[in-house]
């Protein structure tokens, strides 16, 4: 008997409308989709299609204009900034295109940061372990600007996994890297994701990276459609989400 994995991210008719000097602009059309626990999902699309906006809403960095988002059952849409921050600290990890490391902290200290924020006692030990895992055990005391782009992103990955988050959001994780480094980082990301049974949502316009995810969602002009690969058992090649 197989158990159905629980739903980790659930969205219901979420929209995002922003005010501009020329009036209101709807960046996201009503979107509804679910992501199951342990699943890896790539959101692909051209620049300006709204994929980063969607990511920011899913991660609770921004608020929806309408609709509901449930992260591991918790309603993000009804939380204030403080509650969302707590939720992020407890359940979410991040990887960014521009690494977003704190320049004045060393590699190990950057990795320890989420653990310290979460109040974990053994932050240093955890940090050292994961630093070894990403292959940078010898560079712990280096500052970000003393590391290459690939190394910085490995530090960022280590930082993302130190608190063993249930969900990992990655925004163009290889966007700033050359192909050799991209491969390393991708491998590391997916290996750690699999080992930790983390739900992964990543935004990319790199089809190669997207193809490594179990699901792909395509964003176009604020609308999201699911892309089905040949192995998927569906008659249509694409199916509207929402």
């Amino acid at each position, binding site marked *: 008997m197989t158990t159905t994995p629980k739903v980790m991210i659930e969205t219901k008719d979420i929209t995002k409308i922003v005010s501009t000097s020329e009036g209101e602009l709807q960046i996201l059309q009503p979107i509804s989709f679910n992501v199951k626990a342990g699943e890896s999902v790539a959101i692909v699309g051209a620049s300006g299609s709204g994929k980063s906006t969607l990511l920011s809403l899913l991660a609770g960095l921004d608020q929806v204009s309408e609709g509901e988002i449930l992260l591991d059952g918790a309603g993000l849409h009804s939380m204030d900034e403080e509650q969302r921050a*707590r939720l992020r600290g407890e359940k979410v990890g991040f990887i960014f295109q521009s690494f977003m490391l704190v320049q004045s902290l060393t590699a190990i200290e950057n990795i320890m940061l989420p653990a*310290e*924020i979460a109040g974990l006692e053994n932050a240093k030990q955890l940090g050292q372990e994961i630093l070894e895992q990403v292959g940078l055990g010898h560079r712990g005391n280096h*500052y970000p600007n003393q590391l290459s782009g690939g190394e910085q992103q490995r530090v960022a990955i280590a930082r993302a996994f130190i608190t063993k988050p249930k969900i990992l959001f990655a925004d163009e994780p290889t966007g700033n890297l050359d192909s050799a480094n991209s491969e390393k980082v991708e491998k590391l990301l997916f290996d750690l994701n699999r080992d930790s049974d983390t739900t992964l949502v990543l935004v990319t316009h790199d089809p190669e990276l997207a193809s490594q995810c179990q699901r792909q969602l395509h964003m176009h002009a604020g609308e999201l459609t699911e892309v089905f690969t040949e192995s998927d058992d569906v008659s249509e090649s694409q199916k509207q989400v929402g």
Partner: protein
Amino acid sequence: MNNALSLAWRLFKHEAKRGELTIILFAIVLSVASVLSLSLFSERLQSALTAKSADFIAADRLLDSNKPVDQAWIDRAIEEGLETTRQVYARSMVFGNEDMTLTSLRAADQGYPLKGTLKTSETPFGLGEETNYLPNKGEAWAESRLFQTLGIKIGDKIEVGDAEFILTRVITEVPDAGFSVFGGNPKVLINYSELESTNITGPGSRITYTYFFAGDKSDLEDYYDWLKPQLDREIHDWDSVEDDSSPIGRSVGRAEQYFLLASLLAIVLAAVSIAVAAQRYSQRHYDPVAIMKTLGASRKLVQRVYLYQISFITFFGIVLGTAAGLAIQQVVVSAIADTVDVSLDVWHWRPLIIAVFTGVTCAVLFSLYPLLKLFSVPPLRVLRRDLGAGMSSRIIQFGAMGSAILLLMWAYSQNIKISLILFVSGIALVCALLVVTFALIWVGRKLGQGKMGAWQLAWARIKRRAMDNSVQLISFSITIMLLLVVLVMRNDMVSQWRDQLPQGTPNYFLTNITQDKKDNLVEHFSASDVQPDGFYPVVRARFEAINDEKIRTAVSKEDENAQNRGRNGLGREANLTWTDVLAKGNKIVEGQWLDKWQPGDPYGVSIEERIAERLDIKMGDTLTFNIGSEVVDVEVTSVREVNWQTMQPNFFFVLQPQAMKEFTPTYITSFHLPTEQKSQVTELMRPFASVTLIDVDARINQVRDVVDQVSLAVEFILILVLVAGSLVLIAQVQASMDERQQELAILRTLGAKGGLIRASVVFEFLIIGVVAGGMAAVANELTLYLLQSQVFQMEGKMHWEYWLLAPTVGAVVVGLLGAAGCWRLLTLNTSQLLRKMV
């Protein structure tokens, strides 16, 4: 809690190591160091100068009374730990050698003088030596003039009232002699215990009892607090060195105000530099805050981390600043130790408290708004880098900073006037600069177009960053303005002091020169290479009436106030002179000078402003003088302001020459004799026994000595402020250079030549420097006008030279600093530059 602390400490440690806190730490160190060194130095200097000027009233405080005070008052002073002594002043006729003259009699008690030194010599006009005792019973000492007037010598007898005294020494200098050239009559000093035997203190006699007090400032203040309610303003007059209106008192008073001003400006400089640094600090931490928030940090945690960090910075800034301030102060004091006697032993807590308070207040108040902005940075910034802080009200920011500065200045100076002047000028400057900022945007739009040369790049950058640059422009302008204020104020003040007593100022005065002796005297003096100055005719007159109304009360009031130095010439007897040439240091404030007289007009008199006010004499009043048996009526045709600080004959009444043509005057003149030729004076005067010689050399030297010391001290204060200001400027340019880094990197990446980038940055800084310098010159003029007219009691004047100088220096200095900062960035290669930006 502990997380926040350890995180804050780690951030602090690393950021300090990497030089990221340099600017804000440096700003706090600089402000604490400059405020501490300036106020400690000026406090020590003030003590030294106050001690010095105490010499000129022979005590720290004086109590004048026209009758003896209750012994309990003196006992109380002794209980408070004060030293006390007393002296009686009286005008008294002295008889000797079958002649008589009016003298200024002093009966001094044991301990006189408490401050300063009494100098006497064995022969008239001899060099005085310090004398630590008083005349014995039956002895009197007198000034050289008395010997000359009465034709007596040491060992002769004189009669004072009912008593007889033998003259045993010649007084050459008493500390509390006052500064009037014609300080009334020759002084005669006897012992206080002999006063009774003279019988001159009977009813109706005009006598001043002066009580001298010396001791710690706090003891003196406690004593005065106790004494004050018991004083009767009609009878008593409490005087301190600060109330001294002599040239010394004024110079020291003005210098003290200058030190206060300089310290206040140091506080403003500190505030400006911390404000700029705090803003920069806040902007640099937008990313870390966004990252922390994204990783789950609550707002509270972020607040704690940064409040701790600011506390660390403030703490270390204060510790380092205190050390630096003490070191600077020590260097300055040792540098001027030979000239100014500033004791390093005396420790003043106030400057340290002020410095720490300034450091903490500036750090907290000026980083408050940038920190609040920092706390409001949204986590979404990790995805959208263009997102900054949500708050953007500059008005609140400037308002908070302005109020904080005003409060600091007020708290420090306890002088709302001086604080408000600086504040109002600052606000005017800020408003004007905001207008200029908009003008710059407009000009930038016009000039920043077309082919991209260095000039266009510079203007385009100014236009684009105009609002961001407004803070920088304001800080540059305020810094330059403060430096100008301190510099120009010092120049005006020192030149005024020097003008007061230029080299060759007459140090001897001659009176009682009769018409027939006048030409002989000129000839005789010329033979000895001594050149007398102009001759003033003088006639002794009795001031009888104003508009036919007798003036008894006014005159007696004047007589009672024997301490009213500078006006001692008056009394019932007045010296009248006549001329139609307005003397140097005299200024007509009402009416017309005597040279406007036409035949047929009534004869005019020009009267000194303060005496006119006191005797309630108005323009057009008729004054009656009694000269011998003749009566002269003159009409007041002008009122003169007289600078009593010039050591030259000054008169309350100057009459129309025609009114006096019937009278035979004696003349007054003055001459300069170098101190080393002092011994020649007796020889020089030998043929003119009837001419009275007044020696003011000692007074002039005392004044010059103090003025030199004060000038030097002011000079050092100026240098301290200039150094502090320059460092603030460097820090500001440095801070703004970091902001330009990104643009430089992009231009570099796009292949722009180093020369073009450097020229564009230099142009940009030149433009900012010119504007800041120009605005500073305008604001400086306003501030100086207000300060000089309202606080320093000086005549305000325009300083046109600085209108050109300030923009030029502003452009050159800011331009050079910009070029230097840019050069440093351009030595890095593009990838280093890009990496530095991350």
